[in-house]
């Protein structure tokens, strides 16, 4: 209970920090909705040219696009938090942060997260699914579970790449790489070639939108196991690297 309260405090601190540039945030949200609507228009036109994409018609494909949008927005909250931690480490401020009564992982995920993104993402989801009527209501819990697995996998992949940056003293642009990989979400997975399907075992973000959308619209779950395996692999890699990180970190006490 105590732990939850600490996390809530961290989240609210992040929220106020983010909202202080409210004009920028508000317009950015409008813009992201606009880009979602434009991509719906664009892909429904491509579907109109093609007839269908795999097993997806225009109506179901909109749900897939929405899941991609939702997961992108949700995981954006946690995207920068570890990057800020690493920049603090490079400036020699890490010990001062680690003296706080919270674990390393909790600090690394929640101290610099931007909760306004996932709050708006949840609001958008409620509004969107209020309008969609032809869904299987019995499948909602399962699709929520898979969405959460996808989000957790995505966030941990971010964290893993950031830890790699820390250990090997690189500056890979993690958010940019994730943004580019995230663009693969919007395609139906069965269209990909075998090589890309093999890559999905290591990168959970590719399937994170497809699996819940397929459960919700088509009552099928063809690739859920790949998503689960990918997420577990990423989490194992993260915990392995975390152990290694604690040996690498050097400082003089802030």
């Amino acid at each position, binding site marked *: 209970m105590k732990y939850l309260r600490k996390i809530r405090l961290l989240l609210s601190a992040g929220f106020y920090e983010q909202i202080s540039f409210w*004009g920028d945030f508000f317009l950015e949200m409008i813009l*992201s909705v606009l880009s979602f609507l434009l991509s719906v228009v664009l892909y429904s036109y*491509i579907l109109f040219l093609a007839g269908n994409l795999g097993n997806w018609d225009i109506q179901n494909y909109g749900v897939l696009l929405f899941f991609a949008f939702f997961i992108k927005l949700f995981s954006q909250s946690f995207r920068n938090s570890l990057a800020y931690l690493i920049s603090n480490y490079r400036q020699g401020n890490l010990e001062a942060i680690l003296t706080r009564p919270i674990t390393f992982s909790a600090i690394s995920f929640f101290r610099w997260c931007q909760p306004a993104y996932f709050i708006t993402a949840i609001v958008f989801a409620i509004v969107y699914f209020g309008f969609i009527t032809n869904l299987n209501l019995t499948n909602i819990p399962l699709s929520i579970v898979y969405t959460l697995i996808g989000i957790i996998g995505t966030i941990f992949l971010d964290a893993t790449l950031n830890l790699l940056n820390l250990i090997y003293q690189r500056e890979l642009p993690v958010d*940019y790489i994730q943004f580019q990989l995230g663009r693969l979400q*919007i395609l139906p997975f069965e*269209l990909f*070639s075998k090589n890309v399907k093999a890559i999905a075992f290591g990168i959970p973000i590719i399937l994170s939108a497809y699996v819940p959308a397929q459960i919700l619209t088509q009552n099928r779950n063809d690739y859920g196991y790949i998503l689960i395996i990918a997420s577990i692999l990423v989490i194992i890699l993260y915990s392995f690297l975390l152990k290694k990180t604690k040996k690498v970190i050097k400082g003089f006490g802030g």
Partner: protein
Amino acid sequence: MKNIIKKIRRCIAFCSAGFHQVISDRNMLITDLFVATIVPFLIHFTIWSYVLSDGGSIQHFTLPGILSYIGLSIIISRLNNPYDLIYHFSFDVRYGNLDPKWTRPFSLFNFKLGEFVGGSIIYFFAAICIVLIYVFMFPQPSYYNPFFWILVILNLIMAQVLVFSMAWIFAWFSLVFKAPNFLSSLFALLSTFLGGEFLPASLWPDIPFLKTLMLYNPFHFVIGSNAIGIIEGNIDGLMKNTTMLVGYIVVFQCIVTLLRKYERRLYKGAGG
């Protein structure tokens, strides 16, 4: 005469500053050249090879035609990516670094222009490489004409200047918003949708306003129209593209000069 040589030297110095910045950030460069070009291309390859799987064509686009169009337009939009400009300018606005930069004995605008052009030299060579590969695979008669190549290079450089003027206007608005997220993502959204990186402009449905917007917006002349001109080996198309680019550059430069009068009034600094 001395003055001109001095100015040219200055331009070269600005360009080399931008070039060295890009080179020194090697991780970003490699990510930009590989991940950011391969992933969008993979998406389009998957979609279009599914849509045109039976060897058919949409309008006059066949599968290799549309794929080479998309490859070229992706690399040209990489070439014209002003994210850094907007981001750094708004960073300067927020932390009060603009005053010391304005006191330098040359204009900040010219410096940023040189930096931007110098930073894209590497992508420029990547674009030329892709064009050359395409030329050897699908030769057209006009590829033997040196005038065509002069036009291609001229167009690519003018596109840079146009994109810079537009990006400067976006960066200027960070004096109002103080944060870069909205402005940089707006620019990215406009250039991907209006530039024709997703869909060639001529493939859009014949809704009057939409078609006009897609065919005559400035981003189309930077990305889509350039790519189509190169692929078809169409000298007339490239000439038309050049004139439109010149027109848009004049328009946007007028807006820039207007806006620059107000930048010192909007910026609140106490001397850095």
